[in-house]
């Protein structure tokens, strides 16, 4: 007998997601979700989770003013939603093929491109 298609809707409260633990596929803890990036569309979509200590300043909206004041460049750590394997029991588990360093390097390159474009 063929398996029945999964038709039930999975509803998530965003405030449950915020504060959840982020762990990698091998069980290493990255941190807790502090903020979420959402697209500004008619159907807003979660694209990234923000975590780490700097994320608290980012959530309060003071990270970039502080970094500008100190003439330094700070960015919070993020994880793309496409790298999330599952969200269960207030824990976000990432996919095995997700590599933080590669992702952060990609983000860094993207920021540099944006800065270059703005300049």
């Amino acid at each position: 007998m063929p398996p029945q298609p999964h038709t039930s809707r999975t509803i998530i409260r965003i405030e449950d997601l915020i504060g959840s633990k982020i762990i990698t596929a091998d069980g290493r803890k990255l941190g807790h979700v502090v903020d979420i990036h959402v697209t500004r569309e008619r159907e807003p979509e979660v694209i990234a989770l923000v975590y780490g200590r700097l994320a608290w300043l980012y959530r309060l909206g003071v990270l970039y003013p502080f970094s500008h004041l100190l003439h330094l460049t700070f960015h919070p750590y993020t994880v793309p939603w496409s790298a999330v394997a599952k969200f269960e029991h207030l824990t976000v588990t990432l996919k095995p093929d997700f590599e933080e360093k590669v992702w952060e390097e990609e983000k860094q390159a993207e920021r540099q491109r944006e800065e270059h474009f703005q300049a």
Partner: protein
Amino acid sequence: MQEQEQEQVQQEIQEEIAQEISPRQQILVMRNIMDNQLETCDDIEIGRVADIEAELLPDGRLVLTKLLTGPESLAGRVSSRLRPIVHFFLRHRFEHSIPIDEVDGFHPTLRLRGRARDYTIGASERWIANHILRWIPGSGWKEWHERLEQQQPGPCKPETEAEVQAETGNETQEIRAPGDAVGTNTSVASTTAHQPHDHTH
């Protein structure tokens, strides 16, 4: 004169840059939505966003679907364990939700497409105004109530040019109808009028 021209040029450049950034690339964070004031198109503040409901689609995307208000949602923000306890006492009586596509824009306030009377969120405040504040001399209840009664359900203004034309076209036909004394301020409900939803959980 030159300064004004320069300002104009700068404004045009900024507008072009803003147009180039697609909605997909414009990012919102939680402070743009959560706890923000919900304001209807008739400039009435009806509540604040307590929580957001999202749906995990089969293709793995997480899409925001509803804005939630009410004490149970707020209690869930303190601790998710508090939610069933508060639910035991309140039984969803004060919980309301608004579909996210009702939001017209994510400005400092979340502007909704419908009028205040289309949503159940401000119902408790309206009840207080209608049953308690109306007896207080000088409360301005009568004017407020008359203004509210005169409002037609539906969006405040048509969204697209086609809707504008449809609305003005209907209005012209109504005014030209023979035999009836029609006032100049006749308002005709658009055929594409916003259907009021029951947003209660």
